[in-house]
């Protein structure tokens, strides 16, 4: 495979046109942190890296917008915005494979994720609750198509309805329609202070009720998440075994609501009072004003050896928790939106029962676990994923992280959900040569 690093959009266009003319498949590469996602496809002939498209072109602090080239690492952009008291409200999952509890290593592992890669995968974290996802924050894009066209859609202002919104089309398209060369994003003020209300319980119904109450209260939380772990914390380090193990009768979990403003405490206290009315002594509620660690843990738990993303309605949360429990897994959810990420414990050589929730530097055991590919029974794991799909139907369940041998046994996208015929027509129009990551996407697009 040849790898190129174009320094301009024109150069990228030239390379793409060349590849299309010879029918050579191309893959785009940002930080390379999620290249494994999607359907397994043969190694392409050409890899176009966005490493040299790495400039923050504009940061219009007064207008709360920024124009970024695709190869800008999110961390670099965030640092620039932070100096003006602003942020891009995207907090995609953190990699759990940095050093356990070592923040700098963790940061380094994620530092590579580029804005282009994040838009192409359209992944999101806890901030989605209030600020929306990638699709809601990208206001303009410049793309390069496989016939060498360089085109722009959207604009540089937060409100604009001129022309089709191609930014949304390219967000989450996994680079199968063309290269995202540049994006314009909407920024938000960085909150002065935050406080998080945490309610813990080992009763899934109680947690779901707590989450629902918070979702319906006019308290305007920045984030509203839930986690559930099939194994009580004590079991976590001692449990050994290979492959899947069913969960015990009951696990434990928590609901978390984060409030942000100059003074978030009055709302945090209102939320606490609300939760105390729902639960009793078996649902302790507390306010955490040093809350970064618990939200980092939520993000980290979206990645693991095997992760299935469930797109359901909020009322299906108990069903998702029950499924995680039955399969001995761990769940994190955007409780107000209905999205959940279920981790299946597959490489259980040193545990792996959960995200290592335990309030602690969460990744203990993970690095070891990852080093044991032999400990995996791919057929068992693939069957567990299908079992999840059966239990949670009709909610789409997409397999995100998973070892190649699991990926090879099933369709990570869960089949042809949605208007695949129309999607194929869109693909044919934007990439008529069919060279942009063919086969990776839904329906083998």
């Amino acid at each position: 495979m040849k790898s190129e690093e174009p320094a301009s959009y024109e150069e990228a266009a030239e390379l793409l046109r060349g590849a299309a003319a010879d029918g050579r498949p191309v893959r785009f590469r940002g930080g390379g942190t999620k290249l494994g996602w999607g359907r397994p496809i043969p190694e392409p002939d050409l890899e176009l890296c966005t490493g040299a498209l790495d400039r923050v072109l504009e940061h219009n602090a007064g207008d709360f917008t920024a124009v970024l080239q695709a190869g800008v690492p999110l961390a670099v952009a965030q640092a620039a915005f932070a100096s003006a008291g602003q942020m891009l409200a995207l907090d995609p999952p953190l990699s759990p494979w940095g050093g356990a509890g070592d923040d700098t290593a963790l940061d380094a592992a994620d530092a590579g994720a580029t804005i282009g890669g994040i838009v192409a995968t359209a992944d999101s974290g806890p901030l989605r609750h209030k600020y929306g996802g990638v699709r809601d924050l990208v206001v303009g894009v410049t793309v390069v198509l496989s016939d060498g066209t360089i085109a722009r859609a959207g604009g540089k202002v937060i409100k604009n309805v001129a022309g089709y919104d191609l930014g949304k089309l390219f967000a989450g398209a996994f680079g199968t329609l063309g290269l995202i060369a540049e994006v314009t994003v909407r920024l938000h003020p960085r909150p002065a202070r935050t406080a998080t209300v945490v309610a813990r319980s080992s009763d899934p119904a109680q947690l779901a009720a707590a989450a629902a109450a918070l979702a319906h209260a006019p308290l305007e939380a920045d984030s509203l998440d839930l986690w559930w772990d099939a194994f009580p914390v004590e079991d976590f380090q001692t449990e050994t075994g290979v492959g899947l193990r069913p969960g015990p009768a009951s696990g434990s979990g928590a609901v978390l609501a984060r409030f942000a403003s100059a003074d978030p405490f009055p709302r945090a206290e209102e939320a606490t009072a609300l939760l105390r009315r729902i639960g009793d002594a078996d649902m302790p509620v507390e306010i955490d004003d040093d809350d970064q660690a618990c939200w980092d843990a939520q993000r980290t738990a979206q990645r693991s050896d095997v992760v299935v993303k469930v797109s359901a309605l909020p009322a299906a949360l108990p069903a998702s928790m029950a499924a995680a429990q039955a399969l001995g897994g761990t769940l994190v959810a955007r409780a107000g939106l209905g999205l959940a990420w279920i981790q299946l414990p597959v490489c259980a050589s040193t545990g792996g029962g959960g995200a290592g929730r335990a309030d602690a530097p969460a990744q203990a055991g993970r690095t070891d676990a990852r080093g044991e590919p032999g400990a995996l029974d791919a057929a068992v794991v693939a069957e567990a994923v299908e079992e999840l799909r059966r239990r949670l139907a009709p909610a789409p369940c997409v397999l995100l992280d998973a070892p190649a041998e699991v990926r090879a046994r099933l369709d990570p996208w869960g089949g042809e959900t949605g208007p695949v015929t129309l999607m194929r027509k869109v693909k044919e129009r934007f990439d008529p040569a069919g060279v942009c990551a063919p086969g990776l996407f839904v329906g083998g697009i």
Partner: protein
Amino acid sequence: MRGPVPIGELVSICGPERVITEHAALRTYESDGLLQYAVVPAAAVLPDSADEVAAVVAACHRTGVPWVARGSGTGLSGGSLPVEGGVVISLSRMRRILEVDLDNQRILVEPGVTNAQISAAVGPTHFYPPDPSSQVICSIGGNVAENSGGVHCFKYGFTTNWVVGCEVVLPDGSTTVLGGAFGELDRPGYDLLGAFVGSEGTLGVATKIWLRVTPAPEATRTVVAYFNTPEEAGQVVSDIVSAGVVPGAMEIMDKLAIAATEAATHAGNPLDAGALLIVELDGSESECDARFDEVVRFCEANGATGVRIAASEDERALIWKARKAAFAAMGRISPNFYVQDGVIPRTRLPQALRRIEDLGVEYGLRVANVFHAGDGNLHPLVLFDAAVAGEAERAEELAGRIVEVCVDEGGSLTGEHGIGVDKKRYMPKMFSEADLATFQRLRCAFDPEGMANPGKVMPTPRLCGEVPGPYRQHPLEAAGLIDRL
């Protein structure tokens, strides 16, 4: 390709009383809210169900007849202007609220339901935030097609941020679901729903719409401040936003707009003010109270000549009545007016206003300004007298120059009213030929024959070629009998 309208078939689908072919009756559909344009269609149909819509579209597809979907006809860019010889598909009979699911904060509706009915159906505990000033009349299908906004959009987002799924009849008559099939987010695949919202009826007809709704705010605090100039009011908006305060709404009106709305509503705003700024905070009691003093301080620091705080719900309603009546109120001070809709980066407000004022002088016409200040969405209202020879043309030209100023300042041709027919000729000011050709690719994927609302959005008519398949050698070429040049 284009054939005669298959009236008989339309009648067999919808029944004779719901197929209109008589010229006088068809004139109901000749324009939308932009009355400069009028075209009488060959027929209008009023389907009662998604199945009927699909059958009508399929009949048009088979016979090569273009069609235009129509909601309530309040559009301000000629989006639902009929096509000559074509069919208007009016969705005004499809007004059922199909499911209210407050547990999941979702509602499923037919496209003809009005915007205001949606908030009513989920209230008082919840509401649907995008609130165009036309909300009592305009349809949710029209809102989806235009990606409509409103005064609450700076904080809450636009239609596109609240639609989670749509059942759509595609131009070939087939039915599909874009986005969530049961109201869920993040269905795997291309975000075709995101591309459909704001596509101005050119990609298909929405026949069922899933929306998210949100808890109604616990408290609302509304204040109006008066200034000598709109620039001062604009600076307050910038100060508020920079301080991290996110009001539910921020609206500015200039002196002329105040005069017109006072004549229409007697809201009690002083006629000598150069501008007024409405700021409405909403959210939890504690948060509103904490932020309200800050807002008032920003107003005073920027030279407010007066500050009026709404003491009651009635007073708040009066403040909004003046603002929401702004377009219609122009009739009080001018025989005719043209509503423009452009966007600028908020920090360019002083320059943009100066340029608009200079243009008004150049054209010898008055321009009133009303704007959604948080998101830089200007609605300059160009006043003219159609009875004066040439003035209507001058007004139209001036309005065009104004959106060019917006684009020039780094903004957009339209923030919420759409391109339609009215602004398509300005599209090349904002987009290159490559950009436009790329938009066309999307349209061709949905509607290769160009039957859905043709003549809108794109500046020039475009056809869709065949999809160029992968290159294959012709057998004669392989045999060395012919060469490809």
